């Protein structure tokens, strides 16, 4: 908190209805072992992993089935014991067609209490961090195939490393979860602060930093309390931030917590910050302290269109349909199923699609929420300008994209837009601003390719 008792925040942004009440009260539940999992070879930013198992091969729980060879890549592990099937190609909500490895369950599975206590429960190391060599931590993360679980899915071992090119002085753990509806991080912080605190200390040890901050939006008082209690005898600071969308966006969060602004096209490392999501950091603790790979994650299945919203500890690779059925199915008026939250998530076209490492939630909206009013001319009201957390002029960007005035779009920094959706959310004229800007960026990228 600063001088005037105001919570830390950023300039711009919007206040969409939180809608956290659907699933916030539901403690994390474990999904019973599925009869098969479908694991896309590319679940992260960067290059796909190389399959290292053959069809009909037997695999055990947690076995590595794909090797991340490229620098920006992550390994893949099976969350169930079983037999490998033939690869298949599937279409994911972000529009990509990807090869998928399929494992059919067979033999005895690790289940229930055992699995929960292995992933989230028990004692986690909080002191004697000197016992862990930075290189060991880095290798453990890399071996575990951990990627950013907040949605971006950037391979974590590149961020948490002892040989970073830029000097890192601050480790920020992102517990904002600013997307409406989603409560998986909130629930994780409430139910399992242990691995989060432990993971933070381990990551700080690997990076060699002293300053550790966990930023949480102030609409999660119970999570803040649980973390503060757990972190009592450590140097980690838990900071409550103003509840505003998109508080959890990397650049905005770093700006709010450290006052540093990251130039468009630059990364947090350029200002000496490493930033990770709470779920990611819990997976780091599991990988380092228990030697287990990333096989499960917490997913909120929530929204007006779901019968019984839940937070589920789920094996990566189960189909969306399995999760929805576990939550009592869709309500009759369900209209749209989204991977992630409603502001930035992609809509599923097929409910047989599997969830990936980056799926932070499944939001089911009804006709009522997705209904759009008729588009009118831009009123030039400036609401989008006030709302843009990147301080852009969305109306200008959208119009420039619509009329393919690429130079104008570029001059107005269209590339800095990270498609957070604040502008389209607030626009009274119901102009599909994000969609237009996205198309503008696509034209620009095409132009760049031609020039290259």
């Amino acid at each position, binding site marked *: 908190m600063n001088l005037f008792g105001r919570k830390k925040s950023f300039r711009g942004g919007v206040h*969409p209805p939180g809608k956290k009440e659907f699933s916030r009260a539901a403690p994390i539940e474990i999904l019973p072992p599925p009869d098969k999992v479908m694991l896309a070879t590319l679940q992260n930013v960067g290059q796909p992993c190389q399959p290292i198992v053959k069809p009909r091969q037997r695999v055990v729980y947690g076995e590595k089935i794909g090797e991340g060879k490229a620098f920006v890549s992550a390994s893949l592990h099976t969350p169930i014991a079983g037999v490998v099937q033939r690869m298949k190609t599937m279409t994911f909500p972000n529009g990509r067609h990807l090869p998928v490895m399929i494992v059919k369950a067979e033999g005895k599975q690790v289940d229930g209490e055992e699995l929960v206590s292995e992933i989230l429960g028990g004692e986690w190391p909080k002191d004697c961090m000197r016992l862990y060599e930075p290189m060991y931590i880095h290798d453990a993360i890399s071996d575990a195939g951990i990627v950013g679980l907040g949605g971006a899915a950037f391979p974590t071992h590149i961020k948490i490393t002892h040989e970073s090119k830029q000097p890192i002085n601050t480790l920020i753990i992102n517990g904002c979860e600013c997307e*409406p509806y989603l409560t998986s991080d909130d629930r994780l912080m409430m139910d399992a602060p242990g691995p989060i605190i432990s993971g933070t200390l381990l990551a700080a040890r690997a990076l060699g930093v002293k300053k550790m901050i966990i930023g949480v939006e102030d609409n999660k008082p119970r999570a803040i309390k649980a973390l503060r209690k757990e972190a009592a005898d450590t140097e980690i600071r838990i900071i409550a931030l103003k509840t505003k969308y998109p508080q959890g966006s990397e*650049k*905005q969060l770093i*700006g709010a917590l450290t006052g540093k*602004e*990251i*130039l*468009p096209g630059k990364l947090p490392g350029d200002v000496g910050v490493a930033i990770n999501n709470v779920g990611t950091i819990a997976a780091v603790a599991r990988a380092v302290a228990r030697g287990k790979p990333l096989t499960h994650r917490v997913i909120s299945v929530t929204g007006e269109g779901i019968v019984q919203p839940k937070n589920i500890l789920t094996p990566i690779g189960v189909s969306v*349909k399995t999760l929805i059925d576990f939550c009592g*199915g*869709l309500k009759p008026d*369900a*209209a*749209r*199923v*989204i991977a992630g939250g*409603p*502001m*930035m*998530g*992609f*809509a599923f*076209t*097929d*409910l*047989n699609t599997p969830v990936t490492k980056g799926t932070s939630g499944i*939001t089911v*909206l009804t*006709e009522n*929420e*997705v209904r*759009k*009013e008729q588009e*009118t*001319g831009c009123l*030039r*009201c*400036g*609401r989008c*300008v006030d709302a843009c*957390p*990147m301080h852009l*002029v969305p109306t200008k960007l959208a119009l420039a994209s619509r009329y393919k005035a690429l130079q104008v779009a570029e001059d*107005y*920094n269209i590339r*800095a837009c990270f*498609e957070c*959706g604040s502008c*389209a*959310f607030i*626009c*009274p*004229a*119901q102009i*599909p601003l*994000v*969609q237009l800007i*996205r*198309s503008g960026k696509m034209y620009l990228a095409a132009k760049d390719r031609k020039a290259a």
Partner: protein
Amino acid sequence: MEKEKKSEPVSKSVLKSAKEEETTRINVGPSPHFGHIHSTTRLMMTDVLIALVPVILVSLYVFQWFAVKQLMICILTCIGTEAACTRMRNRQSTLYDGSAVVTALILGLSLPATAPWYVAMIGSVVAIGIGKMVFGGLGMNLFNPAMVGRAFVMIAFAGVMSASGYELASTGVDALSQATPLNIFKQTGAITPIYDMFWGVTNGSIGETSAFACLLGGFYLVWRGVAAWEIPLGVIIAVIFWGTIGTIINPESQWTVLHHLFSGSLLFGAFFIATDPVTSPLSAKGRFQFGIGVGIILMLLRSFSGYPEGMMFAVLLMNALSPLINRWTIPKPFGVKTSRIL
């Protein structure tokens, strides 16, 4: 525009593998998947209409059927013109957005009660046709449509629209028997009681007389976030500043800052005309500068020209400057030190 292919998401059902009927209703669309339910063009326009209610009531009370006539002619002509224009350009009707009615009311309320029917009618046709539609419709126009219409009739029918045109002795309507407060002061130096000016029982354009009604409606607009508060604030600050200097230079004058504020469509213009989002700058900083500019031009005209309609010219002039203000108040993108556009 064919490229925006996914723009009708709700109606499109994409599931082919529909074994269970429950999955067939699932549709896709671009993010964000929900919008602000209290923020639509129609609702904004509805709010303007609500805010205009007190102003309209006072005008009906003071000018009686003169006001009814003016407003009805403007509404009907504006709607007709907009419908005709969209039909001529083979576009979908844009009447549902409600902006034509708002323009009609603003224009009607800024006319003298005595103006003949053809003035209101021609003003409306020009406002919608030339002020808005030739630019390409709502959002594309550079100048406030209502003020374009008003400026046109002001010049074309100078006789009936001039200061003396406001008076009409031979009716039962009290207000019409005297000149407007600004004119009385200009010509005779007599001061209209501030009380009358506050409640609006004076002569003037039918919507501008009551400071009370304008403030009431104006505060509603600002509270609802429909009118940007920076604009009226800028106007009022500029007027108070200038007025205070005037009082200091000429302390004997009975025409105080309050008289400045309550006269000659100042408040009506500050809250209802200058705040038109389309023709004012985009950013908060720009809007404030815009307001200050309107206030300064207005006071310049009041001090050195004979027109009581300073507001109209002030707004039109600042409209012309809006693109320029937009350019120099462009927000600095997050993390960027200097903007490339400047």
